[in-house]
């Protein structure tokens, strides 16, 4: 019922779920062996940043446009033309449609 069989392979989510449960149990075991003797509401539960004052809340959060900066920098050659192609002008969308229709027609006429 849960098993998905096709060709030579199969996929059984129940096995995967059991494996995850075992992993969670192990993780819980490890966690329960940790120290419990800290005092709430003191410096012990606050952020420690080499003795510096932690920056305020707005500064601590990494904004979306900063994430994967290096990825875009490395793939600049791909991203610049691709983003440029998305002009947002409705006429260009129809140009793409006409172009793809023409290419498809040519392929169908030549290849069959």
């Amino acid at each position, binding site marked *: 019922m849960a098993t998905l069989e096709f060709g030579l392979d199969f996929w059984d989510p129940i096995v995967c779920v059991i494996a995850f449960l075992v992993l969670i149990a192990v993780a819980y075991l490890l966690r329960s062996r940790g120290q419990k003797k800290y005092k709430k509401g003191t410096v012990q539960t606050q952020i420690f940043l080499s003795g510096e004052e932690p920056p305020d809340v707005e500064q601590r959060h990494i904004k979306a446009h900063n994430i994967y900066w290096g990825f875009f920098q490395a793939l600049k050659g791909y991203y610049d033309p691709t*983003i440029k192609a*998305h*002009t*947002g*002008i*409705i*006429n260009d969308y*129809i*140009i793409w449609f*006409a172009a793809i229709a023409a290419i498809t027609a040519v392929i169908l006429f030549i290849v069959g």
Partner: protein
Amino acid sequence: MTQGAPFNVPFLAVAALIGIAFYIILSQRNLIKLVMGLGIMASGVNLFLVTLGYREGGVAPIYTHAPIERMVLPVPQALTLTSIVIAVATLALMLSMVVHIYRHTGSIDSEESRTMKG
């Protein structure tokens, strides 16, 4: 379909209408003109359908004095009519959207009035 030159004239008109419509849609940045281009394209397709419905010597299927065996099955006419109705609705909707866009952005140019890209 009947052969012979006069019967192909409507198809040339169809090609011309659709060609003009595509030219307008591809080249004109004015949204009102673009909607007009869509209207012309709808007319071209409708003309195509009506032309297909022509049968030489056929009679309109109206049960007043018409000989039954010469009547034409009015499917293409029904198609055209439906497509006209739909075109009316679409054009009205698009034009009212353009009116609203003009109110918001003060422009009906498809490049100047856009807010989204990338």
